[in-house]
């Protein structure tokens, strides 16, 4: 049997919410990165679901772009995190507040 599209969408919504809340409440930069990945993949899941529901391959194509962008983002982001850790010996996001007004 196959599940209806609503289930997938519901799952995507739950994953996205977990990611969003995690981004806001967690202080560790690495965890925050993982949360971002959760949100991106939730978005990917919706794209794929809609592609299947609407019989439009475009949605699945977009997922590849998102994956590439996410990979690039992780490379740059982790680079920043590592560099920052070397300079300040911390991965706590709240310590990085030098842009405070």
């Amino acid at each position, binding site marked *: 049997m196959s599940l209806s599209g609503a289930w997938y969408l519901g799952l995507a919504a739950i994953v996205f919410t977990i990611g*969003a809340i995690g*981004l806001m409440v967690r*202080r560790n930069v690495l965890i925050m990165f993982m949360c971002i990945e959760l949100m991106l993949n939730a978005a990917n899941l919706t794209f794929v679901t809609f592609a299947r529901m609407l019989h439009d391959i475009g949605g699945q194509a977009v997922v590849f772009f998102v994956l590439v962008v996410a990979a690039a983002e992780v490379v740059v982001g982790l680079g920043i995190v590592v560099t920052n850790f070397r300079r300040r010996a911390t991965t706590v*996001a709240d310590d990085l*507040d030098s842009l405070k007004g």
Partner: protein
Amino acid sequence: MVNVGYLMLLLPLAGFLFLVAFGRRIGDPVAGWVGTVAVGGAFVVACIVLAGLIHLPADHRVVVHNYFTWFSSGGLSVPVGTLVDPLSMTMCMFVTGVSALIHLYSIGYMKGDRDYSKFFIYLNLFVFSMLLLVLGDNLLLTFVGWEGVGVCSYWLVAFWFQRESAASAGKKAFIYNRIGDAGFLLAIFLIFEKTGTLQYESGPGGGIFGQLSHLGGGTATAAVLLLFLAATGKSAQIPLFNWLPDAMEGPTPVSALIHAATMVTAGVYLLCRMNPLLHLTTPGMEVIASIGAVTAFVAATIACAQQDIKKVLAFSTVSQIGYMVLAVGTGAYIAAIFLMVMHAFFKGLLFLGAGSVIHGLEDEQDLKRMGALRRYMKWTTVTFTIGFLAIAGIPPLSGFWAKGDVLDNVFAHYKVLWVIGLVTAVLTAYYMSRLEVLAFGGEPRFDKPGPHGEPALHAPHESPWVMRLPLVVLAFFAFFGGVLDLPWVHTHNLESWLTPVFSGTLYNDNLSATSEWALALTDIAVALIGVIVAVWLWRGAEVDKPALEPAFLQRVWYWDDFYDTIIGRPGQRLATFFAWVVDARVIDGAVNGSAHLAKVTGTAARKLQTGYARNYALGIAIGMALIIAFMLSRTWWG
């Protein structure tokens, strides 16, 4: 020969440019000689042009040369051109002649001054501007010259600007002249509006004088009064006369050249040049005549009570120009020009004589500290006395003929003004005799300490030959100048020479021979009365006579105080108000207020910038939620 008129302009201009470039390098006295040669050359050119003009038939003596177009815009086209006619050449002759002599004199007078070459730069520029004023063939070119002489006058009055009084006298001269210049500009606008041209008598439609029929009586009166306002500024007439006495702060050659002989007669020249316009308006002429007579009288009374030798001569100049303006207002233009030329000779002479006295007496200008100079300065005494007799109106010197000519015409036209003129003649003889007696007569007073504890002065010495030569030449003309226009000669004189310029507008007194004799005898009588009274009053050793020098006259009829009260102080209060209320509160308030507003807003807004990534994430989340809510609401209820 009349075609080389432009050289008259170019020579002083070349002298000016040369001295600007090299003046400081060649220094004292070569710079002075360069300036003198440039102006002397202009005089030679003027003689050549004059000879050429005399050879033309009388009714062809108007030679206009347009060299290039200055600018043209719409209906207005302003050429740069010269107008050579008997009037402008008469002016050119005495302007260049007297200027050359005074340049020569300045070589000696300015010796050792630290700005020696600068002095001659200004003088040459002045001569150029004056000639441009005289020779320009349109109102705008005349105006350029008019402004040029004004700015040179300012520079030269304030030449010793380290002295506070000289600096402020320069400013005063400039500001008074600006008021008159505003009138000149308005007159130019008005005339252009009505006639469509600015050229005097050449160009399309015969210039301004060919288009006069487009001017109504009221417009003509307005234009004439505006031009007269300009003339009162430049020629120091009431109500703008009090800058001239202060202008005596300048070096004495400047007083002689600019503030006695040439520049101050520019107003009279302008009115004479515009004679066809003046002819259209009787009320305007009456105003001009009245102002002239009143100025002559008021200035003469003030001259009676001045202690400074140059101040006496300055008020005397105002008074004499008053006579010229009176003559212009009567329509007796030739009498005005005659007096102007004679005045250039004898007043130039008197100022240079006074300069010689001041030079010989360690820069002392107080008449009360002179006396008996006849024993020390023979050349100066003799030449100065000739000037004094000329201005006092003693026959057969030049002043007698010139002043007599003016008074005869005024007698035939306005009896009341003639009486004022006659009283002024008495006063003229009086104050000049007083000056002569105090400076050259009596016993020496310079060898005693001054009234305010100044040390006694050394015995005066006679001036060098470069200063004496101009005195002698000017004395010659002050003595014999009258032959230019003797009343019983009617051909080959100044009158027949100038008549074509004033054809149809000249007032003719038509006096009988008997009346002319009677008037001449009256003139001699009043001159003698003035001289005798002055000599009788001032011959003694006592020179402090407060009864004869009331404060009212010493303070110039309180004229300066009057202006100070009605214009100066309210103006100052207004300026203070604008400085400390409008500027400090309103304008600065607006500027500082907007800066303050930006600061307050920024202080409040910076709290949003926490630096915590999670806060920004929350912001994004809320924003997204709102956008989604909005879109959903559009879908469900749109």
